């Protein structure tokens, strides 16, 4: 904003081409403004118009440094030439700017795409919505601090007849009155009578370096949550001391709005900070106040209601800036019985990361809702079923395993993989049983995941199930790599206790075919090498003496590695 009387812009005699170019720019500007109201930001038409406008500005600025436009109630002038006119006030760009007190606008060379888009966005805000839009167009432009767009304001916007001189009139009048009162006496001086003013000690007014730093830190850093928390402290205390029923209702109303507003404004971080503070107070210094305790419950109930959850989902679908931890903490601050609501709205969340946060919140509060959660495994898109399987894995209710075992029968490999991971989170006999069953899965990745989970459980009981699996046709059909993984998992799980069994496989066992024999013996050698104790070494040495085949080299390597 600047204060020097607005220049109509352009040189007198600016050529017709330039004027036409400016006309064209304004037409594009108005078109883009209209389009922005109609289309979503990623719409092709809108983007095309935006590019077109930017291109026109760039072309103009190849020769000129700026475009200064004079705004009147109906028209826009450039270089004293009319470049835009629209008598329809509801649609007129000129009227919109002028009625907001803007009588000139200048675009400078270098104007950025984003600045133009933001300016148009500001002009498209519904200013009639006074309840929600706190600022007018000029304030919004002022706050945006455009680098390459400037505007000038009408002096008469606030004062119909600009009378800066009113103040002078007042001053003169006042002076006259006073002079009359005092008899307009001449000033008299007698320097001898003057006394020097009392001296103020240096340390009372001189700032030290530390004090300057203190000011600088307060000026540079603004802690928004401190302001909000400070306000909550005051409000709760005022409510705590208040005895007048009407005033109590007043404060309740203010506090409720104040806390909920943080949610409405989409600031979940602040909301969480406030609710944490409130919780501290209601359990601490203000715990004796039933009003404060019940108000807390009321606020939490309100935010746990269906419309509020719907609002949250809408917010998360339209904003991208909420921290995942903030959203999770927010959900965990709500009542535990929001699980059905969260489950219902889960499919409506567009962003995967927010969906996962919902899943976490459902899981943390979902112990008693396992059947409801399990029931969602049907008739839902695959991505949602996957989320449900994830929740079942984290809900910590063993009953979830029944649903997860069913999930193991889904045709989708992705879902079965998720189910194996979820089953793997449970540490009981049933979960191990399901994991061993998963070793028979048709898909290698699922089987590998099951094996990993079995090993991760570290349960010795599973070893027998695995041993029984070896030698079955299903096992023999596995690839060498998978067999090898299986044996290594077994070695990790059972350790030295399984060396005797491995010795039997290596030295005594009969096999259906030479290929299977070789594969299994190679796997055993690798497993023994992994266990690497004296017993394993002895078995390998015996094998070295007994087996004279292609395996000899592998056995020798294994012995060498163990000895190292």
């Amino acid at each position: 904003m600047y204060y020097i009387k607005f220049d109509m812009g352009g040189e007198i005699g600016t050529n017709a081409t330039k004027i036409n170019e400016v006309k064209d720019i304004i037409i594009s500007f108005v078109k883009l403004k209209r389009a922005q109201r109609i289309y979503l930001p990623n719409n092709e038409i809108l983007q095309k118009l935006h590019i077109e406008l930017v291109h026109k500005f760039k072309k103009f600025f190849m020769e000129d440094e700026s475009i200064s436009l004079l705004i009147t109630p109906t028209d826009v002038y450039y270089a004293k030439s009319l470049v835009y006119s629209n008598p329809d006030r509801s649609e007129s760009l000129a009227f919109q700017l002028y009625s907001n007190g803007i009588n000139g606008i200048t675009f400078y060379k270098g104007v950025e795409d984003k600045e133009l888009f933001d300016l148009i966005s500001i002009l498209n805000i519904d200013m009639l919505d006074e309840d929600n839009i706190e600022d007018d167009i000029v304030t919004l432009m002022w706050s945006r601090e455009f680098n390459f767009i400037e505007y000038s304001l009408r002096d008469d916007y606030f004062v119909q007849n600009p009378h800066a001189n009113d103040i002078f009139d007042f001053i003169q009048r006042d002076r006259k009155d006073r002079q009359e009162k005092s008899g307009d006496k001449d000033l008299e001086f007698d320097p001898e009578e003057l006394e020097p003013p009392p001296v103020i000690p240096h340390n009372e007014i001189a700032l030290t370096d530390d004090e300057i730093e203190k000011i600088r830190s307060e000026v540079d850093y603004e802690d928004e949550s401190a302001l909000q928390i400070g306000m909550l402290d005051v409000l709760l205390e005022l409510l705590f001391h208040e005895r007048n029923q009407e005033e109590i209702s007043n404060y309740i109303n203010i506090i409720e709005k104040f806390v909920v507003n943080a949610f409405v404004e989409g600031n979940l971080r602040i909301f969480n900070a406030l609710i944490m503070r409130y919780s501290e107070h209601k359990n601490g210094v203000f715990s004796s106040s039933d009003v404060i305790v019940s108000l807390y419950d009321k606020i939490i109930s309100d935010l746990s209601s269906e419309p509020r959850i719907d609002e949250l989902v809408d917010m998360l679908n339209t904003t991208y800036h909420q921290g995942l931890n903030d959203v999770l903490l927010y959900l965990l601050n709500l009542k535990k019985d929001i699980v059905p609501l969260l489950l219902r709205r889960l499919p409506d969340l567009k962003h995967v990361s927010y969906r996962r946060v919902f899943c976490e919140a459902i899981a943390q509060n979902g112990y008693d809702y396992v059947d409801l959660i399990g029931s969602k495994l049907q008739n839902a898109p695959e991505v949602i079923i996957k989320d449900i399987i994830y929740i079942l894995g984290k809900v910590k209710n063993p009953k979830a395993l029944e649903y997860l075992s069913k999930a193991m029968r889904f045709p989708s490999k992705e879902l079965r993989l998720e189910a194996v991971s979820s089953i793997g989170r449970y540490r009981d006999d049933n979960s191990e049983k399901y994991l061993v069953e998963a070793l028979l899965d048709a898909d290698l990745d699922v089987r590998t995941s099951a094996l990993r989970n079995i090993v991760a459980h570290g349960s010795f009981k599973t070893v027998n199930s695995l041993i029984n699996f070896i030698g079955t046709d299903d096992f023999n059909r596995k690839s060498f790599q998978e067999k090898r993984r299986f044996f290594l998992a077994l070695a990790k799980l059972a350790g030295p206790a399984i060396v005797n069994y491995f010795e039997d496989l290596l030295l005594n066992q009969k096999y259906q075919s030479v290929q299977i024999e070789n594969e299994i013996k190679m796997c055993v050698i690798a497993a023994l090498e992994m266990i690497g104790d004296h017993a394993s070494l002895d078995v390998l040495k015996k094998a070295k003496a007994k087996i004279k085949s292609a395996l000899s080299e592998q056995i020798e390597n294994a012995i060498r590695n163990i000895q190292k």
Partner: protein
Amino acid sequence: MSREDIQKIKKRLNFDKQAIIHIYRICKLLVTHEPDNEIFSKTVHNLLYAISKILEQEGVFSLLFVKSDIYLNKARIQQNITSFSASEYLIKLFISRNIGGFEFYVLPDSRELLLFFYSLIKYSPAEGVDAIKVFEDLLELSGIRNIRVLPTQAVEQVIPDEVQVLRDYKKKTLVIYQSTIRFLKDALSSKDYISGIDMRNAKRLVNQMVDLSGHNVENFSFWGLSAIKNFDEYTFNHSVNVCVLAIAFGNALGLPKRRLAELGLAALFHDIGKLTIPKKILNKPGQLTSEEWDIMKQHPLFAMKLLFNMHGYSESGLKKVIVALQHHMNYDFSGYPRLILEKKLHLFSRIVAIVDTFDAMTTDRVYQKALKPDDALRRIISLASKKYDPVLVKAFVSSIGLYPPGTLVELSDGSIAVVLKSNPQYENIERPIIKIINSPSERLKSDIINLAETQSLQIRKSLDPEEVGINTPHYLFNE
């Protein structure tokens, strides 16, 4: 590029003060550390960043030290509390070296910068020596090719003629000041003042004040607006004055534009709760009874409730609420409303508490005669740590000066003068820029004198304008 263009761009960037602070830190460290010390790396990096931003926009980085000011690319850098000591140090340093400043067109590397400042710190040319020549030789010897030192005599030429700027500025400040008073009067005089307040318009007016407070013009200070007093419309006049003082003070503290606007708006409405106090109590000439005082003490709470209903729940709205609620809570929590949870008061509340008192003390009321501005400051200083934040009180006095703009003073030669603007250097805190309005010496009549540069004259004492029949604002705003 014209001077105006440069100013505009610089206003946008605001890297000027940062550059000064970084240069100051480097110079201070160079007194005790060698330039190859690791300690410099972060500050030099920050300085180079600020310089590169200015170079990027303007193609040149030229610092000139003139009298008590620093000019960056021919535009005067506005000082605030946090950058002032840095500027003062650098001005003294360059003057002592007989150098007007330095400039470069290509971003120097960190070695060049450090060596240049090191030469400045370590080498003081003897009297009669051509300092520029000496430094040019030094720079060449050090292999510094991108930095050029500037002579002092060239400096005087860069000071622009600011007469027209001053005239426009004064006019604009008065228009905004008066518009704000009218706005408040219209809004708060209506019976339904809650819905009568158009907060959008209030913001616009305050934003314009913020812009005006950021201008640095010769011989006039934005602070001076608050010297306008109106006994009959005290409520509105006081609110606007507190707004002016808060913005000016916030600006001196270095608050960014957006926060200045929030502070100004909060200050404008800090006393809105008084609308609910009966006039007979508000304007009672004598002392209030304890019952009346109890009612009076309710005004911050009334204000809080009112302001919550006026977009009070948003972040900026909340600042209005907190200032209205806290502006009578003392620094030692002895004020009102009294709370058991003693928490540090918000920065804005601590600022408004000081400027509110200052304006109230310096205005005639039915129950008190106005104090002279310097006496009001002395009173405030004496209450620091009890009622007011002691650091902010110091900052306030440093910013407004011991004789604030608008103070009527008597000089050592018997002249009477009005203070136009304070001088920012601490040693000149009692030596502002003044306008002589009556003098035994014909030569001095109507002269504007910077007492910091006229050691033969000094302020003997402040005067009560009413006693001598002088209306000081007239001299502040008239040519």
